[in-house]
């Protein structure tokens, strides 16, 4: 396998971007098609890589190494393991569908797709990097296009939201950067040579105090992106303001960068630090789940509902990380994937409705299933995925997280609290989720036909692409989870081995 497939996945959008730069601004259709082709290439390559990935062998595959800055041990080294491969696939699916969800974009089309492709390049880059320098570099590359995309093409307090999002993300990443530099320097001292290679860094023995400190930095840095409570506020505002494709990418993929970073850099490099801070994460994630879901219940704007639902759902991912065992980590990664697809579906549909109705206020809708049965069906399926219905991808993920954290036998706060109690609280989230999701479905799509919305057309043609692709993905991995979990487990196994090998230490409380 000499073909650098991962690099190709990442560069396909760049090539598309360069082509778009050359296309005159008024050739809007050509621009869109170019973007679609570029992302389609990424998608196909990602699927090929997903299929070719050898679960039995596990570990990092499709490796490619190019020496970059030798004096600092920086290499352009890419590769995917069982955790990052699904993320790459997720990104490819979401961006591909996102392009179609933006098909009716008419404002400054050229710039839009340029920034969109720039953004996605960064996201791909993070997931395929094995080198911490490139990891961080790509991580940040995604931020600024996001600002412009939201600022220019957004809605509802877009400038405020764009700035808020950018600053939250950047401040967060600042902490992560400090952590990364500290790790690099520590490791360079221990190893005697400089390296940014994650695997090599993971082999270094960091002392406990260092681990606690750096993991905390990582927790803040990546936690903002997850988003962990109380650093979550950029996300509902950002989701609401962003244009459809950006919301999709943003909630679908960008939040996963945070969780992925937390696992890949935080837990993997600092298992003892992770053990120390895990109880804090566990407690905060309950706030995420329950508080987020309850807030979602009283939102009046469709996008705010989904925005807060993301906060709530990412809480599950955090729970999976906090529980630090095989099942829960498998679940966390699977949930990242499943939530990405699910929330992308939601945003695609809401975008569709908003584009035609020019409002997202739930109270103004009602009975939309009459005019838009396909959208209603898609939304319902998304909702069902969201509430964890078996047969859809999210169920498997949430189930694994729950059972993983539930079976973790560790008491906190001197026995006042335990992972089991926290898991029970988190599981109660499925009830709240069902309530708000179905309430929204009911209030938006069910009920008597409103003539006011008779002019709305149902999704058709290219608009169906996102709905079909995303729903199919949810169902495929929902019915055949081993397609997904076998791969994820091959990536989680070494991580868990590392966690288990780490000293048993008490948590923060």
């Amino acid at each position: 396998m000499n073909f650098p497939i991962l690099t190709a996945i990442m560069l396909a959008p760049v090539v598309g971007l360069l082509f778009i730069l050359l296309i005159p601004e008024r050739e809007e259709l050509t621009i869109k098609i170019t973007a679609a082709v570029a992302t389609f290439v990424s998608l196909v390559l990602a699927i090929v890589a997903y299929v070719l990935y050898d679960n039995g062998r596990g570990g990092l595959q499709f490796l490619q190494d190019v020496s970059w800055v030798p004096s600092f041990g920086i290499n352009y080294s890419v590769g995917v393991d069982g955790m990052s491969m699904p993320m790459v696939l997720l990104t490819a699916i979401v961006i591909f569908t996102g392009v179609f969800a933006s098909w009716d974009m008419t404002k400054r089309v050229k710039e839009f797709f340029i920034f969109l492709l720039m953004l996605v390049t960064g996201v791909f880059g993070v997931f395929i990097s094995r080198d911490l320098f490139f990891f961080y570099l790509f991580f940040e590359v995604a931020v600024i296009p996001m600002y412009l995309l939201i600022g220019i093409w957004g809605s509802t307090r877009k400038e405020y939201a764009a700035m808020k999002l950018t600053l939250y993300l950047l401040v967060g990443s600042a902490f992560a950067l400090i952590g990364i530099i500290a790790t690099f320097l520590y490791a360079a001292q221990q190893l005697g040579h400089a390296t940014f290679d994650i695997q090599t860094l993971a082999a270094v023995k960091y002392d406990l105090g260092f681990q606690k400190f750096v993991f905390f930095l990582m927790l803040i840095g990546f936690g903002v992106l997850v988003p962990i409570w109380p650093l979550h506020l950029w996300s509902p505002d950002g989701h609401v303001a962003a244009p459809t494709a950006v919301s999709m990418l943003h909630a679908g993929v960008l939040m996963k960068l945070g969780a992925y970073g937390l696992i890949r850099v935080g837990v993997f490099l600092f298992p003892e630090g992770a053990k120390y801070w895990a109880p804090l994460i566990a407690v905060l994630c309950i706030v995420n789940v329950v508080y987020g879901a309850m807030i979602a219940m009283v939102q009046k704007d469709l996008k705010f509902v989904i925005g807060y639902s993301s906060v709530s759902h990412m809480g599950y991912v955090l729970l999976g990380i906090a529980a630090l065992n095989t099942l829960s980590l498998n679940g966390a990664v699977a949930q990242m994937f499943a939530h990405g697809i699910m929330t992308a579906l939601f945003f695609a549909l809401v975008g569709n409705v908003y584009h035609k109705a020019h409002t997202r206020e739930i109270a103004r809708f009602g009975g939309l299933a009459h005019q838009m049965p396909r959208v209603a069906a898609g939304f319902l399926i998304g909702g069902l995925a969201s509430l964890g219905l078996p047969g859809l991808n999210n169920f498997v993920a949430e189930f694994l997280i729950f059972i993983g954290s539930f079976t973790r036998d560790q008491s906190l706060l001197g026995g006042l609290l335990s992972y089991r109690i926290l898991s029970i609280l988190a599981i109660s989230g499925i009830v709240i989720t069902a309530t708000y999701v179905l309430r929204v479905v009911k209030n938006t799509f069910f009920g008597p036909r409103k003539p006011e919305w008779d002019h709305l057309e149902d999704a058709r043609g290219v608009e169906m692409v996102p709905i079909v692709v995303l729903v199919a993905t949810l169902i495929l991995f929902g019915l055949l989870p081993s397609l997904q979990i076998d791969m994820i487990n091959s990536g989680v196994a070494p991580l868990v081995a590392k966690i288990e090998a780490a000293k048993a230490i008490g948590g923060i409380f």
Partner: protein
Amino acid sequence: MASLQLLTVEILTAALGLGLLALGLLVPQKDRRGIGYVAAAGLAGIMGVALSMRDASGVVLQGYVIDPFGTYFKVLFLAAALLAAVCSFEYVEKMGFNQGEYYALLVLATLGMMILASSGELISLYLGLELMTIAFCILAAYRLDDAKSAEAGIKYVLLGAMSSAILLYGLSLVYGAGGSTVIKEIARAVAAGGASPALILGTIFILAGFAFKVTAVPFHMWSPDVYEGAPTPVTAFLSVASKAAGFAALVRVFFGALPDLHNFWVQLFIALAVLTMVLGNLVAIPQTNIKRLLAYSSISQAGYLLLGVVSFSVLGIGAIMYYAMLYVFGNMGAFMAATAFSNADGSDEIRDYAGLARRSPLVAAVMLFSLLSLAGIPPMAGFVGKLYLFMAIISRGYIWLAILGILMSMVSVYYYLQVAKAMYLGNPPEESQPVRVTPGLQIAMIVSLLILFILGIYPTPLTNYAMNSAVAFFMP
């Protein structure tokens, strides 16, 4: 003769400067635009020469040091001067007179910086400094028709002279304490004699003098006013090159003459760095004039560069060198975009940038990415520079300083994005024309943008150059 060969760059620069002066007198008024081209070509040529002798080292006349460190900075000054010259073509032509003098002063200021960066001896250091300062005083006040420009000039000349006096007083004390004006000998004397009150006091005065040049808070106060008033290309040149020269000299003096006192002066630099980063960034937030905004931003950049000094390590010097070079392109890029805009619209107000992305995608993009580089956002080169700086500082254990620095650079994103917001989110005013940019400026902007991108993604060549030079400086 070997020693004269080492001086090739300086001699050529001096010759170019004088030649331009003469040319300005000889060439008829209408053809004077050509002088700019000559200057640019000359600077480019000299840069080639400088690059070709980047590994040369030696000492001329006991006190003038040619080493990779100095040559690196010379390349930097020449690059900045070249960009400033290209940037000036249209701007100066609009002013309508004395083009020969303008370019001559530009080149002579460059010569001053070169001397500053290379001098291993206090007298020549002072000479270089003054050559640079006086040339800049005139350049800052060059727009005779503009009261702001005159005010900038007089502020610069008076405050510059005061700071020179302070520096000189410090130099005199150090001379007294070390018994010599040659930096190496001073170092030897300090190592033998330890810290005397005169030496400490001298150090403080020298520090104040250099802090003035590198616009470290609280010695920065001249800079926003001068930057705002001076002609835009001059501001650009002043903000990058004079600062870099200040750092080069600062490193030479403090690392060369006073390494044994570093426990003492590092504390001072920490205080300066903190103040500079915080104040520069905070005050930049409410600015509405692009030049003033960039002035405060460039103050804050000095704060980051000071981190490299604080780290007192090879990595720190390398980081300063790397960052200073990127800073040239980043800041010059922003100023070139500002120049292009002011050539077309005659305004420096940020609100007038509304919708610039529609009127000229290139100018907007150059401005945006230059600012992002200044903010240290990947994949722009500024990120790598900041990474090195923070690495240097964290490797000495100053994690809190690094956190402060990074947080402050995130604050800087806020005000940089205010500019981006105007350019990309705003709508162009009615009946606005596309912004027309001359080909020379266009090329310069694209080149500097490309450099920022390339060095951000593939920083290896410059990293190696800077780090090797730093190593050579630290362990000759």
